[in-house]
């Protein structure tokens, strides 16, 4: 079986872009990825475009702007995992021998499409009684507090850490360090969360170009190519009895698939980019991925172990809390960050000696299902 490599990465500024369109953001990220790869765009054979609240065939609109019309392209919607699912499409095309070079991107002009708190699907029975995404995660936080003694300050520290990392990332939505007191004093959203426990509504796009090992050997730059060793995807299972909301079975199973495909275990991973849509989410993801024992990660954050320069850095890019969360762009931006770190191109955020990175996305909610779509990708230098 062939190996798959990331050969080009591109990302727009994340933030509010009132004067841009979904397609223009996507095109900017794709052009950057093509330039970063140093390729003639005509070597790209297939494409996948992730987007959630955007017009139909947004992917084709992007292609038209970058001179890539004609190739097979599919638009992909998997809520917050849309971009990561698009990458998996390119990954599978290369594994299957359908393409030597494939393009995946995620683009979202979210401020133009949405305001306020997200809800599950419109007809969802939980949305009908007042569920919002912050409320669902706030309930998980409350339960985690009850079971493991998590404190409000420990939760706040996750936001402080990620916004500190974001301040070192020129493409991040947030540019300012904050304090624990800032988090505690923020406007309440769903208790225990205030505004700074929640990822922002951001616009942005990110793109990657993937290529087969053979292609990299013949045409690529092996010094800058980073191996995508696994791209796993699972769907949440219907619960046959009330389950735990403090341990993510879906994340755990998706990670198991990814570790198996990559031939590595959690003990081999040096750092992580995880789906911290809310402060509690970073805890649930990291523990679900098997990187820390259940109930221990909040203490590790308190000791600085998850900082850049710590034992196990988490969300060096700033994560969703700091870098921003343009839904479908998020999963692709995580792979952009992993690639930068593993190439040694992460500048002020560089994690020294990192060899193996893991990215986790989780999106969507439906009544009676633990979660909708989950992706785990492993990159190896």
């Amino acid at each position, binding site marked *: 079986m062939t190996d798959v490599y990331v050969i080009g990465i591109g990302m727009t500024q994340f933030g509010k872009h009132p004067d841009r369109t979904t397609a223009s953001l996507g095109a900017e990220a794709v052009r950057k990825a093509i330039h970063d790869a140093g390729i003639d765009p005509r070597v790209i054979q297939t494409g996948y475009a992730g987007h959630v609240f955007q017009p139909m065939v947004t992917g084709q609109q992007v292609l038209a702007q970058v001179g890539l019309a004609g190739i097979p392209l599919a638009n992909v919607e998997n809520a917050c995992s849309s971009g990561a699912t698009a990458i998996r499409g390119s990954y599978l095309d290369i594994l299957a021998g359908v393409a030597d070079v494939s393009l995946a991107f995620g683009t979202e002009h979210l401020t133009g499409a949405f305001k*306020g708190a997200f809800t599950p699907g419109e007809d969802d029975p939980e949305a009908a009684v007042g569920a919002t995404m912050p409320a669902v995660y706030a309930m998980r936080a409350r339960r985690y507090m009850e079971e493991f003694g998590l404190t409000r300050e420990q939760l706040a520290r996750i936001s402080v850490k990620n916004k500190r990392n974001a301040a070192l990332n020129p493409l991040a939505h947030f540019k300012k360090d904050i304090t624990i007191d800032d988090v505690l004093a923020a406007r309440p959203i769903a208790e225990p969360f205030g505004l700074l426990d929640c990822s922002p509504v951001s616009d942005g796009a990110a793109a990657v170009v993937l290529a087969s090992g053979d292609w990299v050997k013949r045409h690529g730059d092996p010094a800058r190519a980073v191996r995508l060793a696994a791209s796993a995807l699972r769907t949440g299972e219907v619960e046959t009895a009330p389950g735990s909301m403090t341990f993510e079975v879906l994340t755990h199973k998706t990670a198991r698939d990814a570790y198996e495909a990559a031939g590595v275990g959690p003990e081999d991973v040096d750092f992580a980019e995880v789906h911290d849509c809310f402060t509690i989410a970073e805890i649930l993801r990291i523990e679900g991925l098997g990187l820390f024992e259940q109930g221990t990660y909040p203490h590790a954050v308190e000791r600085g172990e998850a900082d850049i320069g710590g034992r196990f850095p988490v969300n060096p890019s700033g994560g969703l809390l700091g870098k921003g969360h343009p839904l479908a762009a998020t999963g692709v931006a995580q792979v952009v960050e992993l690639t930068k770190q593993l190439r040694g191109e992460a500048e002020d955020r560089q994690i020294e000696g990192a060899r193996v990175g893991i990215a986790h996305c989780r999106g969507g909610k439906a009544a009676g299902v633990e979660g909708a779509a989950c992706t785990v990708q492993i990159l190896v230098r």
Partner: protein
Amino acid sequence: MTTTKTPVSFRPRELVVAEDGTGHLVGSRCPTCGAHYFPTREVCAGCLTEDLETVPLPRRGTLYTYTVVHQSTPAFETPYVLGYVDLEAPVRVMGQIDVDPEEVAIGMALELKIVPWGTDDEGRTVWGYRFGGVS
């Protein structure tokens, strides 16, 4: 004025309201393995049995977790308490909790209450549900 006596449920597939104002949530029960589901399902996720029974769900349960919501969609006035209640089937159902935010606690016993939810186009009261303290 309305001529029909049957109260209007906000979501008839999930909540049945009787003429006397009592009501119950509607779920599925697997006749093979006994698993319960809310909302209703066509196939059992545990054993793939296809002919699930539609059943009234128990009215009582305990609070698994909760939050006080301060920002929501325009359809809801804030703040409100929202929670997951583990009914005695067992099956977990989300609902608003009619308990003072200062007094709500994980593990507390709750029961289903049928409450006015709004009015329909014909001016009739539409009924929804919340969970409140056991009387």
